[in-house]
């Protein structure tokens, strides 16, 4: 299925929110292509009758009692924030200004 082009890597980087440099685009295109070529082996085994396994422990719907427990204070929650305003996370512009 691979070969990955620079444009493919640029697309992946956009999806993953990574602003790669030109040098990185070329380098990663080469490396990802090699890795994808190797991991493609998974298609050699496991037919349709094999169920996928997402997790080693068979679990579903783990609930806890609906009781209040102490959580972080707002000061604690904001303690590592890069920017704070009025006891809230201050974020960069989210909407286009039109």
């Amino acid at each position, binding site marked *: *299925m691979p070969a*990955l082009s620079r444009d493919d*890597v640029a697309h*992946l*980087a*956009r*999806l*993953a*929110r*990574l*602003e*790669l*440099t030109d040098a*990185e685009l070329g380098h*990663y295109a080469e*490396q*990802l292509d*090699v*890795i*994808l070529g*190797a*991991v*493609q*082996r*998974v*298609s*050699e*085994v*496991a037919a349709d009758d*094999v*169920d*996928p*396994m*997402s*997790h*080693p*422990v068979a*679990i579903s719907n*783990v609930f*806890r009692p609906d009781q209040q427990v102490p959580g*972080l204070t707002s000061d*604690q*929650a904001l*303690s*590592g*924030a*890069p*920017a704070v305003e009025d006891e809230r*996370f201050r*974020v*960069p*512009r*989210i909407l*286009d200004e039109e």
Partner: protein
Amino acid sequence: MTFTSTPAVDLAAGIAAGDYSAREVATAFLDRIAETDGELNAFLAVDTPGALAAADAVDAARASGETLGPLAGVPVAVKDVIATEGLVTTCGSRILEGWIPPYDATVTAHLRAAGAVIIGKTNMDEFAMGSSTENSAYGPARNPWNTDLIPGGSSGGSAVAVAARQAPLSIGTDTGGSIRQPAAMTGVVGVKPTYGGVSRYGLVALASSLDQAGPFAATVADAAALHAVMAGHDPKDSTSIDAPVPPVVAAAANGDVSGMRIGVVKQLTGEGFQREVREHFQKSLDLLADAGAQIVEVSCPHFEYALAAYYLILPSECSSNLAKFDAIRYGLRVGDDGERSVEQVMAMTREAGFGPEVKRRIMLGTYALSSGYYDAYYGQAQKVRTLIARDFAQAFEVADVLATPTAPTTAFPIGEKVDDPLSMYLQDIATIPANLAGVPGMSLPVGLDDKGLPIGLQFMAPAMADDRLYTAGAALEAAVGWEARP
């Protein structure tokens, strides 16, 4: 007495008996770190005031006649991927440089409750991605057996801390071999418990269905003591297993393998393993047979696909787990000039804050999960995972534990594989199957290669039968009589 070469369980006993103080012990290890870590770079943070305060609290508790915890006064080094309230936690990444968690991981809370003295945070491959600790943003950790060599990874700093006697015990995490492989490279004991046996709450996730924290120690008995403290059901981790902790301490004290069936995995013994690794593996099997174990061969035909499945499942999970590093709630923020959009700031921050291996895996995961490729890659890898779990189930019908070499080679030079991802990934060929199936594994040192570098052997056991690792490990440890030191 030399505290830094005394087993952890003996230190705990000596402190409890009043033979010496917790402060004396903590001071000895802090001095050792100060002497050695300029060269080894095993620690990203050393908490001298916190360690001394915790040690003084143990001494005060003893003086007032309180019952002490099982690790009271014993220094423990903690991998920097585990949250420690008030103590910097970076995951070896620039994106979390200087981050101080406002809460403790459950593992950290267990350590504190047991009276352990948290001495510092250890170096690691960034977000636990790597097999050499070269992917740390803060410089590589160095192998104390030869400082030109890697100590293994990703928990390299924790392995070095124990191997170089900077701490009697340490904690690592293992997603595909990140405890067992560095244990093998540095000549110490390292255990990946059963998935769900130790809480993942407060462990910064790499791949949530694979990650598991576990102990490093110089001896099997010391590893068991730390394992017992770390383990147990935790309501804060929905994948935590609600069952009693396997009797690991008793198993390590027993070490009787007579009648135990030890399965040698046919697919993980021959080609691709360094000659001395194969020789010491065979010699260890002979020692186990002499001790009364029954050696049987088992076949796990799908293990040869484990590496491929792992490098689809892990990047897929990591690309979504690491989406949380978005420059909003914690960590680095780059380019926020009031004009740029949140998306641009995120992309600039992640570009500046993540290293090459992290970016590689995020993009690989993004690819494997993209529409059109999902079934062929991620979906197919999940099916292979099922086949590997079936291989284990069949093997455990005829064997009580499985044995393999831990890693294909001994430690290699720093720089040799750092830009050759596939060759680096092969380091974990024998350790990855246990993570995919969720079963426990242990590596312990069994010999030295021709260059005098340590070689590890791995035991694996069925889920929640971690005690069998300690029975087999104690037997082999006694038979090998390991006394080599870096």
